[in-house]
């Protein structure tokens, strides 16, 4: 593989690698890792245990220098995935040298919603990691990934590995345009509980405590829901809302809150806002990051110039949190 994607200092380079055999995986991964390790660059393989074993065996003694992560646990959800990448780069980067990551997303067993979120994140990485001196190759196993996921790889990576070459992806879509294709939100169900009266922060928090308790949440999970929705309300006000309509409902496994601004938005958060963790100084999307980190999903839409946030929060039956 011609591994000269650009010299160090080139910023973020993001390639897909669609492979259909162990040999094809190694044909990409082995030279990529070898050349990085020889150059003294940090190299991480965040992939399946089977692929980590393949790569270690092929590297032999040089595998001692390889960082690895079982990909399923290297960020369970997109927001955690982004944090995992940023943390790796921060902890391992060597001044003047590029960092290399093999980052294989996991697709098997994911719900349609999760697949859409991961495709969207693959696109968003082009924005979120733009400043990192990082070369990332994302392997997609065409023996197992659905055709729509393979097609999305070509739309979310500017280039792809083809044999010994790196070719541009003709189907690549600008990340903001990619995110703009987010489906509209269905209206809240008819039986949803609605907050009566003005949506002051205190009234919204009381409403959230009530709906969380009615859904069987208590203690830390209830208190966390209150923090999350409070941040969501603050996000609406930060973007020009004069008030909000708030409602809540339950689905199996989920408590949902929907906050819809009254009054037009003075600005709209970028599609990638709130994916990077809070830094040294307060940032405008720290709250959104917290919401993304604590909810199962967060959807942000602008409907008739009004901002709408929909949060899906794990309910009382989530055995990971019992």
């Amino acid at each position, binding site marked *: 593989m011609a591994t000269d994607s650009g010299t160090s200092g080139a910023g973020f380079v993001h390639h897909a690698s669609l492979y259909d055999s162990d040999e094809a995986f190694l044909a990409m991964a082995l030279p990529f890792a070898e050349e990085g390790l020889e150059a003294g660059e940090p190299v991480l393989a965040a992939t399946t245990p089977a692929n980590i074993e393949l790569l270690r065996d092929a590297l032999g003694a040089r595998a001692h220098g390889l960082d690895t992560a079982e990909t399923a646990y290297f960020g369970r959800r997109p927001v955690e995935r982004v944090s995992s990448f940023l943390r790796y780069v921060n902890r391992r980067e060597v001044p003047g040298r590029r960092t290399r990551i093999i980052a294989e997303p996991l697709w098997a067993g994911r719900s349609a919603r999760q697949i859409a979120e991961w495709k969207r994140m693959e696109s968003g990485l082009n924005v979120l990691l733009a400043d990192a001196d990082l070369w990332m190759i994302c392997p997609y196993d065409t023996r197992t990934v659905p055709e729509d996921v393979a097609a999305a790889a070509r739309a979310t990576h500017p280039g792809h590995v083809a044999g010994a070459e790196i070719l541009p992806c003709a189907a690549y879509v600008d990340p903001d345009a990619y995110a703009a294709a987010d489906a509209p939100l269905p209206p809240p169900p008819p039986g949803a509980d609605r907050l009566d009266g003005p949506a002051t*922060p*205190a009234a919204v*928090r009381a409403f959230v405590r009530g709906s969380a308790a009615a859904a069987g949440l208590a*203690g*830390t999970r209830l*208190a*966390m829901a*209150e*923090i999350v929705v*409070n*941040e969501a309300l*603050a996000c609406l*006000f930060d973007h020009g809302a004069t008030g909000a309509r708030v409602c809540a409902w339950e689905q199996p496994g989920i408590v949902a809150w929907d906050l819809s601004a009254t009054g037009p938005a003075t600005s709209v958060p970028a599609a990638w806002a709130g994916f990077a*963790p*809070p830094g040294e100084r*307060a940032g405008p999307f*720290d*709250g959104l990051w*917290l919401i993304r*980190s*604590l909810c199962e999903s967060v959807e942000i839409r602008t409907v008739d110039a009004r901002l709408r946030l929909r949060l899906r929060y794990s309910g009382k039956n989530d055995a990971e949190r019992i």
Partner: protein
Amino acid sequence: MEPLVRTAELCVVRTRRPDGLRIEGVVDAQGHQHLRAALKAVEQVDGDIQLDLSRLEFLDLGGLRLLMAFARSRAAGSQVELVGLAPHLREVISLVGWDETPGLRLGGGHGN
């Protein structure tokens, strides 16, 4: 003693032995300026500071950040201890990575 802050939602009292503040009630976006002012009132105190959060009803992310920034601003060697910290706030602190804040000590919690 007269509280440093008294609003409808928030009350902050200066405490002695140990030196510090007892923060009672609600800190949301409206409360940040009051919390900031109260922290300023103890910034000149030498040595360790104890912030008693056991009567806190609500603290948002911005309020938590003010506490972290206060701990970081203290002279090397002096500590800021958060006592009565609710478990969910402890979880938020470690989620953000603020548990590694220099000068910060996380004291015992209370149920919520």
